[in-house]
């Protein structure tokens, strides 16, 4: 991919975007330059998450060519600042503008000005997605102000420092989607498969579950997703337990489920990136099964979350 920079004027962002297109066409003279935008993506970051999120956005056009509007809330920013770049990739004989990225830096105090800067530069007729890639604000109204112009809101609970993020369900007209829900997809799947091997009784015997997680917020967030799901689906008595180890981890460490004589253990084999599932039934044991864990990078998870039809995770 090649990058084209354009000067941006905070007072005329639509005009700045037109200039970007003109400059890109001039830079790619001789090639047939076309545009392939399938998504408006509004991303909110802070100093802590900005670099990681920028890396995510680099990878995103491979799956979702988009107009990305990154809003960095930085106390050092002071006034509103803006950068504009285009990312162009070769496609056959031609060139395709696969991302138009507009980076707004603003002091959090300036937040009220942002929605009206964003609104006129959303491309019409394509979906708009808000990715809140930072800590939860004290006032959920900030998220709501941007979520109201989006068709979908995505959060990553691994970035939160507090664990009271279920309040997010209160905002906007759609429930946010947590990337942790995708990280535990293989856990849900292997557990569902294990339930194919015995007759589960909803009333008796009771179903108890212990989910172990590490000290990392991502691990806790993922464990919470599983807890929420198992309580909803099984009415199970689910206990979360923090175990030693604080290595960065975005999945639970171990899950143990008991239902009468049935004993299911799912162990996260971190080094091999596999889930080992052991199922003990009343009459016999199955050989251990190995299933890949979620190996998606955050960019891949974000890309997948944009594609998900149903709103899951925090709903």
């Amino acid at each position, binding site marked *: 991919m090649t990058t084209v920079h354009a000067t941006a004027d905070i007072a005329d962002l639509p005009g700045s975007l037109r200039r970007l297109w003109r400059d890109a066409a001039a830079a790619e003279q001789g090639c047939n330059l076309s545009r392939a935008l399938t998504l408006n993506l509004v991303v909110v970051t802070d100093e802590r998450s900005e670099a990681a999120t920028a890396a995510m956005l680099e990878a995103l056009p491979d*799956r979702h060519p988009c107009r990305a509007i990154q809003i960095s809330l930085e106390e050092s920013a002071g006034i509103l600042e803006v950068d504009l770049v285009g990312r162009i990739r070769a496609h056959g004989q031609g060139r395709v503008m696969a991302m138009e990225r507009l980076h707004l830096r603003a002091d959090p105090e300036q937040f009220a000005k942002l929605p009206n800067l964003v609104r006129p530069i959303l491309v019409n007729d394509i979906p708009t997605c808000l990715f809140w890639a930072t800590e939860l604000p004290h006032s959920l109204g900030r998220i709501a102000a941007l979520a109201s112009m989006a068709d979908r809101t995505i959060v990553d609970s691994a970035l939160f420092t507090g664990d009271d993020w279920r309040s997010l369900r209160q905002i906007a007209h759609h429930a946010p989607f947590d990337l942790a829900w995708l990280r535990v997809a293989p856990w849900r*799947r292997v557990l569902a498969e294990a339930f194919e091997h015995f007759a589960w009784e909803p009333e008796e015997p009771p179903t108890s579950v212990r989910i172990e997680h590490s000290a990392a917020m991502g691990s806790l967030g993922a464990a919470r997703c599983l807890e929420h799901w198992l309580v909803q*689906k099984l009415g199970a008595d689910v206990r979360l337990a923090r175990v030693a180890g604080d290595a960065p981890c975005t999945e639970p460490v171990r899950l143990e489920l008991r239902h009468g004589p049935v004993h299911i253990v799912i162990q996260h084999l971190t080094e091999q990136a596999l889930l080992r599932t052991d199922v003990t039934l009343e009459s016999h044991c199955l050989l251990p099964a190995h*299933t890949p864990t979620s190996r998606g990078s955050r960019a891949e998870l974000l890309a997948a979350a944009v594609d998900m039809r149903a709103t899951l995770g925090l709903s």
Partner: protein
Amino acid sequence: MVNPLAEELQRGRRAAPCSLVIFGATGDLTHRKLVPALAGLKRDGLLPAGFAVVGFARREKTDEQFREELAAGVAEHGRTGAGEGFDALRESIFYHRSSFEDGDGYAALGRRLEAVERELGTTGNRMLYLATPPSAYSGILANLRDAGLSQESSDRFARVVVEKPFGHDLESARALNAQVGAAFAEDQVYRIDHYLGKETVQNILAMRFANGIFEPLWNGNFIDHVQITVAESIGVEGRGAYFEEAGVLRDMIQNHLLQVLTLVAMEPPVSLASNHVRDEKVKVLHAIRSFAPHEVAENTVRGRYTKDFVGGVEVPGYLDEPGVSSDSNTETYAAVRLEIHNWRWGGTPFFLRSGKRLPRRVSEIAIHFKRPPHHLFANNDLSPNILLLRIQPDEGISLRFGSKVPGPDVNIRDVRMDFRYGSAFGRESADAYERLLLDAMLGDSTLFARRDEVEEAWRIVDSIHAGWRDFHPRGYGAGTWGPEQADRLLGAGRVWRRP
């Protein structure tokens, strides 16, 4: 008791637990396509935890030797990340040695499968893949039936996947279908044509039936004719002996091109349920009449490439290829004009062409619309609108239409509105075998050919072959778009698109 978490098993098209038995497990197809596809599915988490592969072949080897050979195949032919998928799958792969004719070998296979099912929790579901030369099908099918391995019950499935070619002509196809039918019910049978696993072929249905603007125009009132092209730039590439028996009519048109034609021409199905889709596809084939021998010459062109320069290098003619008989009567190019005799398409010809050693490797469907009824722009020679569905390469859809050239004069020039998969969806399309293996495990037979489709396609192709007995293929230079006679096939005012 219903699984309270079953929703997870239905989400994301993940297959139910099962064992996959591959007959011909030491062959090329297994190493180049099937196991790399399984590794890709495993990598993407689309295979169930309860899954096993049992390779069935004649050669003596251990499970571990078999795994090592497959690992090498995955390393060479698998897509990115397939190696990781294979590692996760490795311990679930087993080898069963037996000849295809030995009944005891199948009884032993049954016992082996029961043990695997108990140990790996594959729940008794079985998929049986015939990755062998067609000559072995008969013995395998009979032995599967005799060993009870083709039987399914209310709580476990038994499915058989059969690779093309599905026969050599109508008679042999019927005989093969009878052999398959003696062991399996039709809804257990999955006849695989990898062409239908391509994303862009599947998109024909999405484009036609997920959009409101095309279908009202999709008939002979607005469409002048349709051209379907599947061109290969390579020659027979060492497969001369095989190709001598097939020819491009049997090898490409009987299956790939006629399948594509049915998707373009079919009526909207009641639903996307496999039999609803296949019912409509087979109706299209029913509406194509067999040619009488005297009609074949005026509706078909048969060609054979001759020595010429390709990329600055001289390449041999077909008759000089290894394994090809000097008095061969096999065609490497065929163009066919077909009429679909129904209300929608009456009077609208479909032109199918396929060949080897053509200038480019390309597959496309070009819908040529009729010209406007009144010629308002008198000084302009208006071209017809063409809706182009590109299957490969550069998958996508484009529409050609006329636009005014800026300036004081009224000049109309053709311009193109272009949609490219690669631009709009950067994601790599799944390999056709991944898609089709997964569909077979899920019990979705939409993209597999049904018995009556196969036999109807052979009926049409056989009638062409009958008319070809008396004349030889016409020569065309390697690297050209086929014999000149193919241009005349289209009739006045029409030309082949140059893809």
